Protein backbone atom coordinates (compact mmCIF):
# COMPACT_ATOMS: atom_id res chain seq x y z
CA UNK A 1 0.00 0.00 0.00
CA UNK A 2 1.30 3.34 -1.04
CA UNK A 3 1.99 5.82 1.69
CA UNK A 4 1.49 9.47 0.87
CA UNK A 5 4.23 11.50 2.45
CA UNK A 6 4.15 15.26 2.46
CA UNK A 7 7.50 16.43 1.30
CA UNK A 8 6.75 20.07 2.02
CA UNK A 9 4.94 21.73 4.84
CA UNK A 10 3.95 25.34 3.99
CA UNK A 11 5.52 27.79 6.34
CA UNK A 12 3.97 31.01 7.65
CA UNK A 13 5.74 32.90 4.85
CA UNK A 14 4.06 30.68 2.25
CA UNK A 15 0.69 30.99 3.90
CA UNK A 16 0.81 34.75 3.54
CA UNK A 17 0.46 34.31 -0.28
CA UNK A 18 1.54 37.90 -0.91
CA UNK A 19 5.22 37.11 -1.52
CA UNK A 20 4.21 34.67 -4.27
CA UNK A 21 1.81 37.22 -5.71
CA UNK A 22 4.48 39.90 -5.92
CA UNK A 23 6.91 37.39 -7.36
CA UNK A 24 4.43 36.81 -10.18
CA UNK A 25 3.79 40.49 -10.67
CA UNK A 26 7.54 41.06 -10.94
CA UNK A 27 7.51 38.93 -14.08
CA UNK A 28 4.83 41.18 -15.54
CA UNK A 29 6.83 44.23 -14.55
CA UNK A 30 9.99 42.85 -16.11
CA UNK A 31 8.23 42.31 -19.44
CA UNK A 32 6.78 45.81 -19.20
CA UNK A 33 10.26 47.31 -19.64
CA UNK A 34 11.47 44.81 -22.25
CA UNK A 35 11.57 45.50 -25.97
CA UNK A 36 8.07 45.39 -27.48
CA UNK A 37 7.43 42.66 -30.04
CA UNK A 38 4.06 43.91 -31.28
CA UNK A 39 3.98 45.39 -34.77
CA UNK A 40 1.36 48.17 -34.76
CA UNK A 41 0.04 46.77 -38.01
CA UNK A 42 -2.11 49.31 -39.87
CA UNK A 43 0.34 52.12 -39.09
CA UNK A 44 3.54 50.09 -39.13
CA UNK A 45 3.81 47.42 -41.82
CA UNK A 46 5.65 44.15 -41.62
CA UNK A 47 8.19 44.08 -44.45
CA UNK A 48 8.41 40.63 -46.00
CA UNK A 49 11.79 39.28 -47.08
CA UNK A 50 12.79 39.08 -50.75
CA UNK A 51 11.06 36.25 -52.52
CA UNK A 52 7.89 36.52 -50.49
CA UNK A 53 4.94 35.21 -52.48
CA UNK A 54 2.03 37.62 -52.25
CA UNK A 55 -0.25 39.28 -54.76
CA UNK A 56 0.55 38.67 -58.44
CA UNK A 57 1.59 41.20 -61.02
CA UNK A 58 2.13 41.22 -64.79
CA UNK A 59 5.44 42.71 -65.85
CA UNK A 60 5.84 45.18 -68.69
CA UNK A 61 8.75 46.22 -70.89
CA UNK A 62 10.00 49.76 -70.36
CA UNK A 63 8.13 50.90 -73.50
CA UNK A 64 4.83 49.73 -72.03
CA UNK A 65 4.39 46.44 -73.86
CA UNK A 66 3.12 43.54 -71.76
CA UNK A 67 5.74 40.84 -71.36
CA UNK A 68 3.14 38.08 -71.35
CA UNK A 69 2.76 36.17 -74.63
CA UNK A 70 -0.28 34.16 -73.47
CA UNK A 71 1.48 30.81 -73.82
CA UNK A 72 -0.64 29.53 -70.90
CA UNK A 73 2.31 27.80 -69.27
CA UNK A 74 1.32 29.37 -65.94
CA UNK A 75 -2.25 28.14 -66.11
CA UNK A 76 -0.92 24.69 -67.03
CA UNK A 77 1.48 24.71 -64.09
CA UNK A 78 -1.11 26.07 -61.68
CA UNK A 79 -2.10 23.29 -59.25
CA UNK A 80 -5.49 24.86 -58.56
CA UNK A 81 -6.32 26.15 -62.08
CA UNK A 82 -6.94 29.70 -60.93
CA UNK A 83 -5.37 31.43 -63.97
CA UNK A 84 -7.60 31.94 -67.00
CA UNK A 85 -6.05 33.40 -70.16
CA UNK A 86 -7.66 34.32 -73.48
CA UNK A 87 -4.89 34.94 -76.05
CA UNK A 88 -5.09 37.32 -78.96
CA UNK A 89 -2.89 39.00 -81.58
CA UNK A 90 -0.56 41.60 -80.14
CA UNK A 91 -1.48 45.25 -80.87
CA UNK A 92 2.18 46.26 -81.04
CA UNK A 93 4.32 46.02 -84.19
CA UNK A 94 7.60 44.99 -82.57
CA UNK A 95 8.04 42.07 -80.23
CA UNK A 96 6.03 38.90 -79.89
CA UNK A 97 2.87 38.19 -81.86
CA UNK A 98 0.62 37.02 -79.03
CA UNK A 99 -0.58 38.84 -75.98
CA UNK A 100 -3.30 38.17 -73.39
CA UNK A 101 -6.67 39.73 -74.21
CA UNK A 102 -7.92 38.55 -70.85
CA UNK A 103 -5.79 37.42 -67.92
CA UNK A 104 -7.90 36.59 -64.89
CA UNK A 105 -6.67 35.20 -61.59
CA UNK A 106 -9.08 33.95 -58.95
CA UNK A 107 -7.24 35.14 -55.84
CA UNK A 108 -9.50 33.18 -53.54
CA UNK A 109 -8.60 29.95 -55.31
CA UNK A 110 -4.90 30.78 -55.59
CA UNK A 111 -2.60 29.16 -53.03
CA UNK A 112 0.40 31.44 -53.77
CA UNK A 113 2.75 28.55 -54.51
CA UNK A 114 4.77 30.50 -57.10
CA UNK A 115 4.63 27.77 -59.75
CA UNK A 116 3.33 30.30 -62.29
CA UNK A 117 6.37 32.55 -62.02
CA UNK A 118 8.62 29.49 -62.23
CA UNK A 119 6.84 28.22 -65.34
CA UNK A 120 6.77 31.57 -67.11
CA UNK A 121 9.31 31.68 -69.99
CA UNK A 122 9.01 35.46 -70.42
CA UNK A 123 9.28 36.41 -66.71
CA UNK A 124 5.94 38.10 -67.14
CA UNK A 125 3.97 36.89 -64.12
CA UNK A 126 5.56 37.48 -60.75
CA UNK A 127 4.48 37.36 -57.14
CA UNK A 128 4.95 40.57 -55.18
CA UNK A 129 5.31 41.25 -51.48
CA UNK A 130 1.74 42.55 -50.99
CA UNK A 131 -0.01 40.45 -48.35
CA UNK A 132 -3.05 42.44 -47.17
CA UNK A 133 -5.72 42.42 -49.85
CA UNK A 134 -8.82 40.99 -48.19
CA UNK A 135 -12.16 42.18 -49.48
CA UNK A 136 -15.87 42.12 -48.82
CA UNK A 137 -17.01 40.42 -52.01
CA UNK A 138 -15.87 37.49 -54.09
CA UNK A 139 -16.05 39.53 -57.31
CA UNK A 140 -13.49 42.08 -56.06
CA UNK A 141 -10.97 39.31 -55.56
CA UNK A 142 -11.09 38.25 -59.20
CA UNK A 143 -8.13 40.23 -60.51
CA UNK A 144 -7.98 40.89 -64.25
CA UNK A 145 -5.19 41.97 -66.61
CA UNK A 146 -5.51 45.69 -65.89
CA UNK A 147 -5.51 45.02 -62.16
CA UNK A 148 -2.35 42.96 -62.45
CA UNK A 149 -0.68 45.73 -64.47
CA UNK A 150 -1.76 48.19 -61.77
CA UNK A 151 0.00 46.04 -59.17
CA UNK A 152 3.08 46.20 -61.40
CA UNK A 153 2.98 50.00 -61.31
CA UNK A 154 2.70 49.91 -57.51
CA UNK A 155 5.63 47.55 -56.99
CA UNK A 156 7.77 48.31 -60.06
CA UNK A 157 10.77 50.05 -58.57
CA UNK A 158 10.15 50.07 -54.87
CA UNK A 159 9.01 47.81 -52.10
CA UNK A 160 5.28 48.30 -51.50
CA UNK A 161 5.68 48.58 -47.72
CA UNK A 162 9.15 49.97 -47.02
CA UNK A 163 9.32 52.20 -50.14
CA UNK A 164 12.95 51.19 -50.60
CA UNK A 165 14.34 50.83 -54.11
CA UNK A 166 14.38 47.48 -55.82
CA UNK A 167 17.08 46.42 -58.23
CA UNK A 168 16.10 47.20 -61.82
CA UNK A 169 14.92 44.28 -63.91
CA UNK A 170 17.20 43.45 -66.84
CA UNK A 171 15.70 44.08 -70.27
CA UNK A 172 15.66 41.00 -72.49
Amino acid at each position, binding site marked *: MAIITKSYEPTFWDKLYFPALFKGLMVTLRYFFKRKVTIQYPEEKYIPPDGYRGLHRLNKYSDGRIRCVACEMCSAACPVDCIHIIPGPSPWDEGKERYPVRFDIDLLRCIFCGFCEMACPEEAIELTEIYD*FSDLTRENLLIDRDGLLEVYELTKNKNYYSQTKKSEKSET
Partner: protein
Amino acid sequence: MQHDDVKSNVLTTTLESAINWGRKNSLWPMPFGTACCGIEFMAALAARTDISRFGAEAIRFSPRQSDLLIVAGRISIKMMPVLIRIYEQMPEPKWVISMGACASSGGVFDTYSVIQGIDRFIPVDVYIPGCPPRPEGVVDGLIKLQELVDKEKFSDYAPPATNS
Protein backbone atom coordinates in the same frame (compact mmCIF):
# COMPACT_ATOMS: atom_id res chain seq x y z
CA MET B 1 -27.08 65.89 -39.72
CA GLN B 2 -23.98 64.71 -41.47
CA HIS B 3 -22.42 61.45 -40.36
CA ASP B 4 -19.10 63.16 -39.65
CA ASP B 5 -20.83 65.63 -37.33
CA VAL B 6 -22.31 62.76 -35.38
CA LYS B 7 -18.91 61.22 -34.91
CA SER B 8 -17.29 64.44 -33.75
CA ASN B 9 -19.96 65.25 -31.20
CA VAL B 10 -20.35 62.67 -28.49
CA LEU B 11 -23.29 64.29 -26.73
CA THR B 12 -25.56 64.34 -29.76
CA THR B 13 -24.52 60.98 -31.11
CA THR B 14 -27.24 58.72 -32.34
CA LEU B 15 -27.97 55.45 -30.60
CA GLU B 16 -27.13 53.65 -33.80
CA SER B 17 -23.59 54.93 -34.13
CA ALA B 18 -22.97 54.47 -30.40
CA ILE B 19 -24.04 50.83 -30.57
CA ASN B 20 -22.09 50.27 -33.78
CA TRP B 21 -19.02 51.73 -32.11
CA GLY B 22 -19.43 49.29 -29.27
CA ARG B 23 -20.04 46.38 -31.57
CA LYS B 24 -17.14 47.01 -33.85
CA ASN B 25 -14.65 47.38 -31.02
CA SER B 26 -15.71 44.24 -29.19
CA LEU B 27 -15.98 41.57 -31.85
CA TRP B 28 -15.69 38.25 -30.09
CA PRO B 29 -14.48 35.68 -32.55
CA MET B 30 -15.47 32.06 -32.60
CA PRO B 31 -12.66 30.30 -34.46
CA PHE B 32 -13.60 27.34 -36.58
CA GLY B 33 -10.09 26.25 -37.38
CA THR B 34 -9.91 22.98 -39.23
CA ALA B 35 -6.51 23.32 -40.90
CA CYS B 36 -3.31 25.33 -41.08
CA CYS B 37 -5.25 28.62 -41.28
CA GLY B 38 -6.28 27.93 -37.68
CA ILE B 39 -2.61 27.89 -36.69
CA GLU B 40 -2.05 31.17 -38.51
CA PHE B 41 -5.08 32.61 -36.72
CA MET B 42 -3.40 31.72 -33.42
CA ALA B 43 -0.39 33.65 -34.65
CA ALA B 44 -2.67 36.63 -35.24
CA LEU B 45 -3.75 36.33 -31.60
CA ALA B 46 -0.19 36.22 -30.34
CA ALA B 47 1.98 39.12 -29.29
CA ARG B 48 3.41 40.12 -32.64
CA THR B 49 0.15 41.03 -34.41
CA ASP B 50 -1.97 41.39 -31.34
CA ILE B 51 -5.63 41.45 -32.39
CA SER B 52 -6.62 42.48 -28.87
CA ARG B 53 -5.61 45.94 -30.09
CA PHE B 54 -8.89 45.78 -32.01
CA GLY B 55 -10.92 44.37 -29.13
CA ALA B 56 -11.11 40.91 -30.62
CA GLU B 57 -8.96 38.96 -28.22
CA ALA B 58 -11.81 37.28 -26.35
CA ILE B 59 -11.87 33.98 -28.22
CA ARG B 60 -15.05 32.12 -27.33
CA PHE B 61 -15.30 28.48 -28.21
CA SER B 62 -19.00 28.70 -27.53
CA PRO B 63 -21.04 30.10 -30.44
CA ARG B 64 -23.64 31.53 -28.08
CA GLN B 65 -21.14 33.97 -26.62
CA SER B 66 -19.54 35.13 -29.85
CA ASP B 67 -20.53 37.39 -32.72
CA LEU B 68 -17.82 36.76 -35.29
CA LEU B 69 -17.33 33.36 -36.91
CA ILE B 70 -13.87 32.88 -38.38
CA VAL B 71 -13.90 29.88 -40.68
CA ALA B 72 -10.26 28.91 -41.09
CA GLY B 73 -9.61 25.78 -43.05
CA ARG B 74 -11.21 23.36 -45.43
CA ILE B 75 -14.76 22.30 -44.68
CA SER B 76 -15.76 18.86 -45.81
CA ILE B 77 -19.32 17.91 -46.70
CA LYS B 78 -19.65 16.04 -43.39
CA MET B 79 -18.47 19.14 -41.47
CA MET B 80 -20.81 21.61 -43.16
CA PRO B 81 -23.95 20.70 -41.11
CA VAL B 82 -21.86 21.28 -37.97
CA LEU B 83 -20.74 24.68 -39.24
CA ILE B 84 -24.29 25.66 -40.19
CA ARG B 85 -25.47 24.59 -36.73
CA ILE B 86 -22.76 26.70 -35.10
CA TYR B 87 -23.68 29.66 -37.31
CA GLU B 88 -27.34 29.34 -36.37
CA GLN B 89 -26.50 29.09 -32.68
CA MET B 90 -24.75 32.45 -32.70
CA PRO B 91 -26.89 35.37 -31.45
CA GLU B 92 -28.05 37.78 -34.08
CA PRO B 93 -25.63 40.59 -34.77
CA LYS B 94 -23.16 38.13 -36.29
CA TRP B 95 -20.53 38.26 -38.97
CA VAL B 96 -18.49 35.68 -40.81
CA ILE B 97 -14.88 35.88 -41.97
CA SER B 98 -13.83 33.29 -44.51
CA MET B 99 -10.11 32.94 -43.94
CA GLY B 100 -7.82 31.37 -46.50
CA ALA B 101 -8.23 29.76 -49.89
CA CYS B 102 -9.78 26.51 -48.63
CA ALA B 103 -12.68 28.09 -46.76
CA SER B 104 -13.28 30.73 -49.44
CA SER B 105 -13.20 28.54 -52.53
CA GLY B 106 -11.96 25.06 -51.70
CA GLY B 107 -8.42 25.99 -52.67
CA VAL B 108 -6.33 23.10 -53.84
CA PHE B 109 -8.93 20.58 -52.70
CA ASP B 110 -11.12 20.53 -55.79
CA THR B 111 -12.74 17.25 -54.83
CA TYR B 112 -16.21 15.90 -54.23
CA SER B 113 -15.81 15.87 -50.48
CA VAL B 114 -14.68 19.45 -49.85
CA ILE B 115 -17.08 22.42 -49.92
CA GLN B 116 -16.07 24.74 -52.75
CA GLY B 117 -16.52 27.90 -50.76
CA ILE B 118 -18.52 28.22 -47.55
CA ASP B 119 -20.54 31.08 -49.04
CA ARG B 120 -22.59 28.45 -50.83
CA PHE B 121 -24.17 27.73 -47.45
CA ILE B 122 -23.65 30.62 -45.04
CA PRO B 123 -23.30 34.36 -45.79
CA VAL B 124 -19.70 35.59 -45.67
CA ASP B 125 -18.79 39.21 -44.92
CA VAL B 126 -15.03 39.31 -45.44
CA TYR B 127 -12.89 37.05 -47.59
CA ILE B 128 -9.18 36.81 -46.76
CA PRO B 129 -7.14 35.30 -49.60
CA GLY B 130 -3.90 33.48 -48.92
CA CYS B 131 -2.75 29.97 -48.19
CA PRO B 132 -2.62 30.63 -45.31
CA PRO B 133 -2.92 34.43 -45.05
CA ARG B 134 -0.34 36.27 -42.98
CA PRO B 135 -1.49 37.39 -39.51
CA GLU B 136 -1.41 40.93 -40.91
CA GLY B 137 -3.86 39.76 -43.56
CA VAL B 138 -6.21 38.60 -40.82
CA VAL B 139 -5.90 41.97 -39.09
CA ASP B 140 -6.60 43.68 -42.42
CA GLY B 141 -9.75 41.59 -42.79
CA LEU B 142 -10.77 42.47 -39.25
CA ILE B 143 -10.33 46.20 -39.96
CA LYS B 144 -12.45 45.86 -43.11
CA LEU B 145 -15.11 44.08 -41.06
CA GLN B 146 -15.02 46.88 -38.46
CA GLU B 147 -15.68 49.40 -41.23
CA LEU B 148 -18.60 47.25 -42.36
CA VAL B 149 -20.02 47.03 -38.82
CA ASP B 150 -19.68 50.79 -38.45
CA LYS B 151 -21.96 51.36 -41.46
CA GLU B 152 -24.71 49.01 -40.32
CA LYS B 153 -28.24 50.24 -39.70
CA PHE B 154 -30.88 48.99 -37.30
CA SER B 155 -33.20 48.56 -40.27
CA ASP B 156 -30.88 45.84 -41.60
CA TYR B 157 -32.11 43.65 -38.77
CA ALA B 158 -35.82 44.44 -39.20
CA PRO B 159 -37.95 41.38 -39.84
CA PRO B 160 -38.99 41.07 -43.50
CA ALA B 161 -42.37 42.54 -44.35
CA THR B 162 -45.06 39.89 -44.59
CA ASN B 163 -47.66 39.95 -47.33
CA SER B 164 -50.81 39.36 -45.36
